[in-house]
Structures are given as structure tokens and as C-alpha cells.
């Protein structure tokens, strides 16, 4: 179970909107699962409690035809890693932008868009970050084996 006053405050305010895992994996204090439309509200509570954005990434689950968006947060005063997992349909993965709350999220969202093809709704800048400007392929998808 998680400890730490900041994390406890976050979960208290978030209520039962998201499901929490019983035993988090090693390295995590808490793992939450939520829906895409709950993300912005949850992240606002997290930001208000002083957490910083560690990373935004994704996992492509080809066999189950799903894609997971992962948000990692941590705190400067005590190390409490919090992960939020958003399960999306692989054929149309959409996430809301949190760049208005955490400005540093913009680059992570650009990278998600080009590497996985995840559309981030409301993202002010959707250019490719690491690939060429006109690259249209998504390398980190499991069915990608090299440029044609």
C-alpha cells in the first residue's frame, strides 16, 4: 500500500473515480487505472498537490488490440511514484492534452503522436518531435518492422 501524505491527499480528492491496484509493481507507490475523459480532472488534483511530471508513454498491446497510455508522476519532497494507466482501443487511440496544466507535457504528447499514432486532443503543437517533419509511420507500434 502507498504511504506519503501527498499521495494520500491526491487519492482522497480523486474519490472512487479511478480504480487503484492492490499491490503496485516495484518502483511504484500507487498505480491507478482511469478512463480517458477522467484524465484532466485527475491531473489537476495531482498538480495542485505539488507533483511533477516524470513521463508520458504508451504500451502497444497488439494481441488484445488495446493501447495503454501511461502517465508517471513523482514528488520533490518525498519520492512517491504514481502511475495512471489509460486503456484505449488500438484502432482509435485518443488522449486529452494536459499541456495546459503541465507545460512540459507538450513534448511527451508530440512523441506519443509520432511513435504510436495516438491522437492527443487539444494539443497545440502536433508536429513530429524526433522523426522527420513529413514522416507518417509509427515506429514503436508492434507491427512496424522498418520503412517500406
Amino acid at each position, binding site marked *: 500500500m502507498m504511504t506519503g501524505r501527498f499521495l494520500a491527499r491526491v487519492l482522497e480528492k480523486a474519490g472512487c473515480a479511478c480504480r487503484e491496484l492492490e499491490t503496485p509493481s516495484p518502483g511504484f507507490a500507487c498505480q491507478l487505472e482511469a478512463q480517458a475523459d477522467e484524465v484532466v480532472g485527475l491531473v489537476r488534483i495531482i498538480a495542485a498537490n505539488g507533483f511533477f511530471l516524470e513521463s508520458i508513454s504508451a504500451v502497444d498491446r497488439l494481441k488484445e488490440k488495446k493501447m495503454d497510455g501511461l502517465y508517471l508522476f513523482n514528488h520533490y519532497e518525498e519520492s512517491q511514484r504514481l502511475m495512471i494507466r489509460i486503456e484505449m482501443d488500438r484502432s482509435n487511440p485518443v488522449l486529452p492534452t494536459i499541456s495546459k496544466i503541465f507545460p512540459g507535457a507538450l513534448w511527451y504528447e508530440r512523441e506519443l503522436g509520432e511513435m504510436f499514432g495516438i491522437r492527443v486532443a487539444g494539443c497545440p503543437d502536433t508536429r513530429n518531435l524526433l*522523426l*522527420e517533419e513529413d514522416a507518417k*509511420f509509427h*515506429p514503436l507500434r508492434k507491427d*512496424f*518492422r*522498418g*520503412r517500406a
Partner: protein
Amino acid sequence: MGAGSTVPPIIHFAQLEKVFNTARANSLWPLTFGLACCAIEMMSAAGPRFDLDRFGAGVFRATPRQADVMIVAGTVTEKMAPTVVRLYEQMPAPKWVIAMGNCAISGGPFKLDFNYNVVEGVERLIPVDVYVPGCPPRPEALVEAFLKLEEKLTGTRRFPEAPAIAREEG
């Protein structure tokens, strides 16, 4: 012999060219083109222990207009490829290229079947004169590359080549 990878001159002045080639060989000004890890070994080669300046090659120019030799140190990606070619074309003749490190020679550890972003060897973009293997090559290897380049220009080598270590049979 001394024109590098450009079209050689039509009229040759034998003795004058010998002087020019010796002068060029002793003052090869490199272009700072460090892309990845090999850049650090290139900087070490210009550093105090493996001094490149004693061969006349310590004046690293940031602009290709003033450089003679381009040391491609590091991995060349598809996004960087047009820049490499443009810099090579901006260098005035005679010019030479040293491909430093495994990535510049053949893509190195990134030559894989799902490779989507690494150019497998800078020789696919520009003509290369000397290849320096290693990941990263030691600074002494870069010094040897300059000695080999001098040998390519003038026909003679400044220091004798180190004798090969005899292989043990069996």
C-alpha cells in the same frame, strides 16, 4: 594524389605540387562534426594528452568554409543526412573525409533489420578517404588516421608504422 576526392587539376606542376601537398598535409584543419559518442574521443584527441596540434591539425573550425577535412564522428541519421551532404558541398576543394567510428563506417551497432532511421555508413552520402574502426576508437586511432591521410597526400609517412604483433600459431 593530393586533390582528395575532388576532380584533380588538369595542369600539373610537379615540384610545386609536392610543396603544396606537404604544406596541406601538415596543416589539415578539421571541421567540428561530432554527432555522438565519437565526438568525445575526437575532443580527447585534440586535448592535452593525445595532442593533434603537433601534427598541425589542432585548429578545429566550426565553419566548413575554412575546413580541409571533415571528421564524421558518430551516427548519421536520415534526418541529419541532408545536412552532412550540404556541409560537404560547402567545404572548398581540396577536401577529405575521415569516417570515425563504426557508425560512420557501416551503421555500426545500429545496422539491424528494423532500422528505420540510421544511415548505414556515411560513404552512402559522401566519398570517404580514411576509415577508423572502433566503438569509440581510441584517440590514438584518430591520430593514426591523420598520419594515413598525410601518407595519402604526400606519399611518405611521418612516423614509421608500428610493427604488427606476431600471431601465435595454433
